[in-house]
């Protein structure tokens, strides 16, 4: 790794903490961002010569703050900026600051920074765009590519979103326990949105990095809030899903169903981390939707082959999830487990009442068709499959479903 690549990685890693601290200091997003930019420029100039500081985050905060203050002084009194050599040689000042800015300080700064992006008036796509820009430091062009819009359109979107949060009244005092946990829940939801945006993009190269970014943010939250089981669950859920990335698509780019995936292509390191986290989370006995979803993915990850899947365990987990957040989609997923356990007839009876709420949801008709096919009711299966195809969101998706259904039909000799 070159110096420059290392410095870039260090600046990216330090960004949430440093920007969060500068925001607390200036109480103004634009000024905080400018100060951080300034500090980064000085880092790029100083670190290759003098070596990186022991605590890059503290260095960036101190230098960013001083640079911004110098800017103000310069404007008001036209005095000279101090030479960079003085700033780079922070010596004791840096370690003193680092002492004061321990984990608990950063914790609420980072949370505040993320929380600001979750403003309820902002639609989810704007929350994500804002978080990727402000917290992750992705360029407008990178974000625009992920959302399939022009750079100019994304620039406008982010500017509008920033104007909106600028007016929002975000308290800068240290939050109380209840407020902190509310903020954490909002931030967790936003991080999961970022992940899903990347995950649903499949192999789209512009969107795939969003998954890595969401995992990075979840690890960051975990370091700051190490004892929150739902944050562990969220991180585990994303890690276990991301672990299957290489196996999710075949050579033609078609989606491969979980049970047909080549499990040797699952990423063992990500699975190991995900399993460690869900194990830790469950010790707390404070279940939540992220933990339950992660536990479902963990059950798949622990099965050496699809045939060894613990479907009874998965059914129980979906049942728990249904109780926490009732939704016909979750019931549909449970029906798939029920089909494995008790056969297609039971599953079909279970999803019958879901037809109305899921009338526009193609996986419903896909699952229904598959159950009917297993029961030998091929004509009804065919019409369910046709319905699924007609509900596909795009021609490409329709072609995907058709290819998959053709395979199913061929297997059933239909």
């Amino acid at each position, binding site marked *: *790794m070159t110096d420059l*690549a*290392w410095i870039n*990685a*260090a600046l*990216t*890693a330090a960004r949430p903490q440093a920007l969060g601290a500068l925001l607390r200091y200036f109480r103004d997003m634009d000024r905080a961002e400018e100060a951080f930019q300034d500090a980064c420029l000085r880092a790029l100039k100083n670190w290759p010569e003098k070596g990186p500081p*022991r*605590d*890059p985050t503290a260095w960036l905060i101190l230098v960013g703050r001083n640079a911004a203050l110098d800017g103000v002084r310069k404007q008001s009194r036209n005095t000279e900026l101090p030479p960079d050599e003085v700033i780079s040689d922070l010596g004791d000042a840096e370690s003193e600051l*680092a002492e004061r800015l*321990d*984990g608990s300080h950063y914790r609420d700064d980072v949370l505040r920074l993320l929380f600001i992006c979750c403003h309820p008036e902002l639609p989810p796509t704007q929350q994500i765009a804002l978080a990727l820009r402000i917290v992750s430091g992705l360029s407008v062009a990178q974000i625009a590519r992920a959302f399939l819009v022009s750079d100019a359109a994304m620039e406008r979107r982010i500017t509008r979103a920033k104007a909106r949060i600028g007016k929002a009244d975000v308290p800068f005092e240290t939050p109380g326990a209840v407020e902190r946990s509310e903020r954490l829940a909002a931030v967790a939801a936003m991080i999961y949105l970022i992940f899903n945006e990347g995950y649903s993009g499949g192999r789209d190269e512009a969107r795939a990095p969003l998954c*890595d970014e969401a995992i*990075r943010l979840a*690890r*960051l939250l*975990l*370091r700051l809030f*190490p*004892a929150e089981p739902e944050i*562990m669950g969220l*991180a585990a859920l994303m890690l276990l899903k991301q672990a299957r990335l290489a196996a999710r698509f075949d050579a033609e780019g078609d989606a491969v169903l979980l049970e047909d995936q080549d499990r040797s292509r699952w990423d*063992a*390191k990500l*699975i*190991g*981390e995900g*399993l*460690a*986290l869900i194990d*830790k989370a469950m*010790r707390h006995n404070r279940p939540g939707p992220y933990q339950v979803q992660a536990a479902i993915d963990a059950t798949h990850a622990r099965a050496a082959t699809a045939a060894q899947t613990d479907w009874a365990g998965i059914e129980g987990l979906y049942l728990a999830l249904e109780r926490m957040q009732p939704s016909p989609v979750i019931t549909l997923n449970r029906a798939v487990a029920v089909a494995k356990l008790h056969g297609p007839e039971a599953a079909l009876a279970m999803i019958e009442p879901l037809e109305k709420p899921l009338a526009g949801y193609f996986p419903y008709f896909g699952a229904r068709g598959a159950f009917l096919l297993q029961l030998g009711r091929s004509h009804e299966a065919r019409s369910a499959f046709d319905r699924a195809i007609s509900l596909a969101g795009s021609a490409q998706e329709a072609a995907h479903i058709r290819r998959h259904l053709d395979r199913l039909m061929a297997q059933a000799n239909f």
Partner: protein
Amino acid sequence: MLYSLLCYNKEDVVWSWSREEDDAVMGRLSVVHEKLVKEGKLGPSLRLLPTTAAATLRGSMVIDGPFAETKEQLLGFYVIDVENLDAALDVAKELSAANPTSVYEVRPVALFVPDARPNAPKEMIRAY
């Protein structure tokens, strides 16, 4: 004499490396590993998952996270069998050249318990 070489780095940076960056570092390290194997110096070695996956037992309390919050985290370690500190530092220098942003602490081993599992792997295995 047995030495352990403890590798420290900023885990948030290392675990944000792209696949290519990670592969590049691991590729350079594996050249050093192979050399050490040929010279008969390499003992058991581990790369650890991030400290966010750790739990710490203190007395009867299980605490989520690592033993201590530090600026740099223990990412993994080697056990090597070499003549003396100078030789151990030479190995550390080679590892450091392959992985320049990491710091290597050279620490002599006081007690070594070999892998006693009946089917102990002879080759490198993946995380779990």
